[in-house]
């Protein structure tokens, strides 16, 4: 029975014997199982928060958006399709999109208000890169970012962590649009090879 998973929830996330994959948890969540949802949170909560924090930088904003993300995971769990990628990727993709939406909404509001842009949302590449470097806890990811050309790395970091569109990245770097598009794509492909990501 489904209730059997509850004992595991009670013991909390520190237990090493949680055997369930995020995919199977998400399948139960899609059936309205909120105990599976709690376990899923314990499995991916750090990644979701980290993704939001990487883009938003402010822990309070990150927590706010992370909550929205989790509610959306609950709402839309039935739309996850394991044939198209892992549950982790699905969830973190959703988290990144929400975080970027938030950054852009704030940005648009500021633009409308014609106010001087806050330095915290209009960060230069150096600032973004420095913050990201120090925030990356996974040595492997940091090392792999180091294998990109500096222009690839700039484009990827500004787009992913800076929440910029590639057009904005092109503006920032005074580079042609096609060039920036290929830098991002080539950079990601190189990261894929370095990280050994399959899908």
């Amino acid at each position, binding site marked *: *029975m*489904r*209730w059997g998973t509850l004992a595991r929830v009670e013991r909390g996330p520190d237990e090493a014997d949680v055997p369930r994959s995020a995919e199977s948890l998400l399948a139960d969540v*899609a*059936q*309205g*199982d*909120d105990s599976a*949802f*709690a376990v899923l*949170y*314990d499995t991916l*909560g*750090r*990644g979701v*928060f*980290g*993704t939001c*924090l990487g*883009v938003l930088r402010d822990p309070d904003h990150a927590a706010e958006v*992370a*909550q929205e993300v*989790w*509610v*959306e995971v*609950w*709402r*839309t769990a*039935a*739309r996850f*399709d394991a044939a*198209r*990628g*892992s549950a982790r*990727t*699905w969830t*973190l*993709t*959703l988290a*990144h*999109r929400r975080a970027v939406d938030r950054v852009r909404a704030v940005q648009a509001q500021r633009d409308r208000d014609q106010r001087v842009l806050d330095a915290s949302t209009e960060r230069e590449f150096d600032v973004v890169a420095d913050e990201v470097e120090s925030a990356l806890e*996974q040595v492997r*990811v940091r090392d792999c970012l180091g294998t990109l050309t500096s222009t690839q790395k700039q484009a*990827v970091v500004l*787009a*992913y*962590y800076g929440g910029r*569109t*590639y057009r904005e990245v092109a503006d920032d770097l005074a580079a042609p649009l096609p060039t920036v*598009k*290929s830098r*991002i*794509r080539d950079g*990601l*492909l190189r*990261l*894929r090879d370095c*990280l050994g*990501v399959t*899908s």
Partner: protein
Amino acid sequence: MTISDDDPRSLLGAYALDAVDPDERAVVEQLVASDPEAAAELAQLAAVAATLGDAVAGEPPAALRASVLAAIADVPQLGPLAGPRHAVADAPAGPPSASDGVPASPEGPASSDAQTPGVTNLADRRRPSRTRWLAVAAAVVIGAAVPTALAVQQAQRANEAEQQQQALADLLTDPSAVVVHGDVTGGGTATAILTDDRALFSATGLPDPGDDKAYQLWVVDADGAASAGVMADDAGSVRQLADDFTAGSALAITIEPAAGSTQPTTDPLVVLSTT
């Protein structure tokens, strides 16, 4: 492989980083829906992007967990996407734009209605799925073919109804589940599903309990009666789950002051048990 700039495949990387405009997003989604090779590449790029987010150090605030678990209690779930499936691109159910807003209360924990007291309490949340039980409760009303306005409205919402059916089906597969019926003194009928460790109570056609009065549910065993909560009365219908039900116990309802009583102060109007 070299691709020309006007080839939408050149946008896959930017798309994976959410760095495209909305119209470009649509173009890419169309591409991956029809081109398995592009879909496969995007799946990989999306996984790389997820790794970039995963790598950021940061411990979520401890309160976030409880807040999230409370927030989902009142949020209905969507069904699977109908029609032709799209590729990886729309895995997160399409662009989560502002119009695709989450109906969660922005202040955090969703406000709980009177029917689910203490729903924001974490200890409470760890009990068997309350969301599911509430869905079951609604399904019982439908199953009893009592066309209350609520039931009709809910029956029209296919996703919800489907979910309720599923929840009810799940409940009924509990080997210990027993369905019992009874007439309520004063008017109305009661139905309950009893299992070895929880029970679901539902009644319809109940008269108004009176000013400042309410129907209260009790779990009754050899040691006496324990409250299973005051029930919100919706046009003569009530439903409530009893988390503390045990095998061999009975369910009973009484009319009590609206705030509820610690022990019954009136005679039971109906008693449901397996014996």
